């Protein structure tokens, strides 16, 4: 058992802010008009602008991959670069990859269905099939960087990103890995967007140029965030934050759960992850203020991250870190209108 708390030492991201290493501008974004498919009128979302992965990470070959896999490769590479990790000096069989996603490689899954619609199930594409698997992004990261430790893909209703972060930290604590790359992301496709639309979950701002509002639904988003966690931190490593204990549950008493986690130590900053945004109109039983007391600064959930649903937790954390809070105790708090919560204690550096 490693008693040293895992430290967040590197960040990489491919988001509507672009492909970036480290912290980002975190300036409020406006959703863009969708042009990737034909719609009966204006449809908006927070989208990742197309870019050539090899221009960011030389040597990447992503032509046959789902965008999700390509983004995972770019984000993970940028995170390792940001962390200043020299993989040649490490035991690669002790480097883990933990990936969280709500929908997985949905783009190539749709392409596979398309080939079945066109050619019948007997005429589907053997190249596409393996790339539809949910763990493809994580395994491509392992393959590109020769990472031979645990390689896990998880999903969790409302809290996939938080669940990956907590489980990766657990691997480090139990000395099943020395370093973990935690990734969380999703792509937006026509089938996903139209499901939200037909289910009437989208905000009015998706269909007009009116300002963003959390009322009446959410604005879908896409992207990928990667974070490097280290168990025994290298002396020269940057420290964004130290991860403390965490809890997550699919239901039950949020207040009791969070208070049990915090004990007497209330956070100075609470980062609201706001996952489960698709049902945000459902009233939540208590506010973040109720949970953490009057003195904590509340960093509210951001629309660009809330739109990523299950996988948005890491983007929420990145946006909060990028807003340059001072050092101190923080609580990452994701709540779902479906019920349930994810809470993680952090010590910001």
């Amino acid at each position, binding site marked *: 058992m490693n008693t040293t708390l895992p430290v967040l030492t590197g960040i990489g991201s491919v988001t509507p802010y672009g492909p970036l290493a480290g912290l980002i501008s975190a300036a409020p974004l406006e959703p863009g008009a969708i042009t990737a498919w034909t719609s009966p009128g204006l449809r908006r979302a927070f989208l990742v602008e197309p870019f050539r992965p090899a221009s960011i990470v030389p040597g990447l070959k992503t032509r046959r991959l789902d965008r999700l896999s390509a983004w995972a490769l770019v984000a993970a590479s940028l995170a390792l670069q940001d962390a200043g990790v020299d993989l040649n000096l490490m035991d690669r069989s002790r480097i883990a990859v933990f990936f969280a996603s709500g929908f997985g490689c949905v783009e190539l899954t749709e392409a596979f*269905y398309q080939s079945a619609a066109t050619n019948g199930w*007997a005429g589907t594409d053997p190249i596409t099939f393996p790339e539809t*698997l949910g763990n493809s992004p994580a395994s491509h990261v392992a393959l590109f960087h020769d990472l031979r430790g*645990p390689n896990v893909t998880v999903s*969790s209703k409302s809290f996939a990103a938080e669940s990956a972060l907590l489980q990766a930290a657990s691997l480090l604590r139990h000395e099943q890995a020395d370093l973990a790359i935690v990734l969380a992301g999703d792509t937006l496709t026509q*089938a996903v967007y139209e*499901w939200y639309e*037909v289910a009437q979950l989208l905000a009015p701002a998706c269909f007009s140029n009116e300002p963003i509002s959390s009322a009446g639904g959410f604005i879908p988003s896409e992207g990928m965030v990667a974070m490097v966690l280290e168990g025994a931190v290298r002396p020269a490593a940057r420290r964004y934050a130290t991860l403390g204990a965490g809890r997550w549950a699919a239901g039950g008493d949020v207040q009791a759960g969070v208070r049990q986690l915090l004990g007497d130590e209330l956070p100075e900053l609470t980062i609201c992850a706001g996952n489960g945004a698709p049902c945000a109109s459902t009233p939540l039983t208590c506010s973040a203020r109720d949970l953490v007391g009057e003195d904590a600064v509340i960093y509210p959930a951001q629309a660009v991250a809330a739109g990523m649903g299950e996988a948005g937790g890491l983007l929420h954390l990145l946006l909060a870190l990028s807003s340059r809070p001072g050092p101190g105790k923080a609580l990452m708090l994701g709540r779902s209108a479906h019920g349930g919560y994810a809470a993680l204690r952090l010590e910001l550096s």
Partner: protein
Amino acid sequence: MIDAQKTIVVTGIGVISPYGTGLPRLQAGMLAGQCCLKPVTELYPGFRGTVASVGDLPSVAGSHRYSRSDRLAMAAAQDAIAEFSRSGSVLRESGIVMASTVAGLTEIDPEISRGPAAWYRHGGLSRAASYPVSRVAASVGEHLGIEGPNCAVSVACASGAMAIALAANMLLDEAAPMILAGGSDALSPFTLSGFNSLQALDPEPCRPFDQNRNGLNLGEGAAVLVLETLAHATKRDAKILAVLRGWAMTNDATHPTAPQKDGIGLACCIERALEMAACGIEEVGYVNAHGTGTPLNDIAETHAYENAFHGRSRPIPVSSTKSYFGHCLGAAGALEAAITITAMQASALFPTLRLTDPIESDQVDWLRGELRRQPLPAAMSVSAGFGGSNAALVFGRPRA
């Protein structure tokens, strides 16, 4: 000295398989050497092959909201906690870690690609809601009123074993008092078509580890283990079925679909699981192998056993129980964990069916022909999957 807070035990096993619902049916079928693989042609036009399917699924309220994979998971979980009082807080606060690779793909048809919105408006909306892999774990939670941490694992064919490994870590972290961990996957045209396109399917019943093996057969099912710490199990006076002594996960990092030819990544996984279990190579009495029946997997896996058990005084007994009811993908690792525990309970080493001309190895004792009876102090279940992932679980017998 055993640390009861850090010892993970199995106190319940739920199964739904082509043998029916419940571990006793699975055990009876396998002890009798009954093969569930059958030829089929109706799964989609043009398909001719061999699969193993589950017969009638138990009915659930609001079944239209659940995929077949969800319903298999719900049935196995229900079976796993059959002895439990539903009103107790222990169950309500428990966690769920369920593996799946197919999840709700069973409910979506290719017509969606011609116009998603129209497909949703004509009945597809609720069917598509079961698409995310997280739905499998969430469905079990909804069905049983379990409110603790709820997580799905999707790591191809290693998923089921990884779900058990992750759940064990969560118990060590005290994330929940008890965790239902396992896997569930249903047969679907999507996966049959995919494996068929890769020419990975044997049209006849598969022959794992045979020199004339010709591919895999797909099956379906679900298995759920109830895991908790020894301290927790003792406190509630639960019957302990097995001890999960060690677990490990690694990745080959060599190819998106093919295993590492020399099996080094899998061997490393086995060695780490044995190390955690403090279990010597002589102590392992049986390995329930991944054993898909594909040319590449089985030879790589053989090399892995030769590496991991090198120096053992006698060959390591190995079999593939996929020869009984096919490869159940995300459920495979969990079903095979259940079978491994059954093997220990019954002191029975299940032979690989149809293994007539095994891969040559002087370090592997290929179990074939008659069922072998032998006490097993420790046994291992090994899984691997596309993307290079490997998982190994070491089980031990509970102390009398």
